[in-house]
C-alpha cells in the first residue's frame, strides 16, 4: 500500500488556512481603506487651519514693529 502524501486531513487544513488568510487579507485592506478615509476627512476638516495659523503667526510680527 502506497503512502499517500496528500491525506484528506491536509486538504481540510489547507481549506482552513486559506479561509483564514483571505479573512486576514480582507481585514488589512479594510483597515487601510478606513485609514485613508479618516485621514482624508481629517485633512478636509482641518483645511482652514493653515490660514488661521498664518494669521496668528503674522500678528505678533506686526505687533512687534510697534514701539
Amino acid at each position: 500500500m502506497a503512502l499517500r502524501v496528500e491525506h484528506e486531513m491536509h486538504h481540510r487544513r489547507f481549506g482552513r488556512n486559506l479561509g483564514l488568510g483571505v479573512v486576514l487579507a480582507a481585514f488589512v485592506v479594510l483597515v487601510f481603506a478606513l485609514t485613508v478615509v479618516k485621514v482624508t476627512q481629517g485633512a478636509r476638516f482641518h483645511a482652514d487651519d493653515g490660514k488661521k495659523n498664518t494669521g496668528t503667526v503674522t500678528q505678533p510680527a506686526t505687533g512687534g514693529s510697534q514701539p
Partner: protein
Amino acid sequence: MTDIRSYEGGGEARFGDYVQLLKPRVMSLVVFAALVGLLVAPATLHPVEAFCAILFIALGGGASGALNMWWDADIDAVMRRTQSRPIPSGRVEPGEALAIGLALSGISVVMLGLATNLMAAALLAFTIFFYVVIYSVWLKRITPQNIVIGGAAGAFPPMIGWVAATGSVSIEAFLMFMLIFMWTPPHFWALALFMKSDYGDAKVPMLTETHGRKSTRAHVWWYTVALVPFSVVLAFTTIGGPVYMAAALILNLMFLRGAWAIWRRDETAAEADRYRVEKSVFRFSLYYLFLLFVALLADAGLRVMGG
C-alpha cells in the same frame, strides 16, 4: 499507517464550521436591522465607514452567537434541532468557540469604535454582554420570560446602526428598539404553540410548558396589544412618513386580528386544523417586521428625493 488512520473520523473542523459558530442566519438579520437604523438616521457616514459599521455590528452579533454556543453546548447536545451544531457534533472544541467568541467580541467593539464613535462601540459591547451573560448564562434557564429578555438583545442592532451614524441615542432609535423588543415574544410564542420542541428535555423553561398553552395564547394577544403603540408612534417621529404610517396601520390591524384568533381558540380547534392559525400568524409576524423596516427605508428615500 496506523498513525495516519487515527486522524480519520472527521474530528477536525473545516473553515465552514467556524463560520457556523457565528450563526450566519442571525447575522444576516442583524445586518438588515443595523443597515436600516444607519440609513434612516439624519446623518451620513462615508460609505467605507458605513460598511465597516455594519460589518462590525454583524461580527459582534456573530461573536455573541459563538459565546452562546459555547455556554449552551449541553442544551444543544440534547435538542434535536441543535445536535448538529459544531460543538455538540464534536467538530469544534468548546474552548475554541470561547476563544473565537472573546477575540471577535474585542475586535468588533474596538473596530466599531474606531470606524464610527465610542457610543456605538459601548452599545455593541453592552449587547454582547447582555446576550451572553444576562440572557444565556443567567436568565435563559431560570425564567419562562426568557424570550422577552432574549428579544432585547436582538432589538439592539438598529439602535447601534443609528448611533453609529449620529453619535447619540434618540427617541427614534429607542422606538426601533422597542419595536423589535415587543415583537419578539408574540412571534416566538406563536411558533412555540405549533412546534413540538424538546426544551423540556433540555430543562429550559418555556412558557408553553411552565404555564400551559392556554396561558401562552393569552400572552401572544397581550404582547401584541403592547407592541402596537410603539409601532404606531414611530410614524409620528422624524423617521416616520406616509409609507410607514400606512404600513403600520394595516400591519398592526392584521397582527391584532391574528393574535386575537390565537387567543380565542383552544387546543382542540388548533389540533383539528393542524395549527393553521398559529402557523399563519407566525409567518405573518416575519413579514410584519420586515415590511415595517422596509417602509422606514421607503420614507427615508422619499425624504432624500424631496430634498
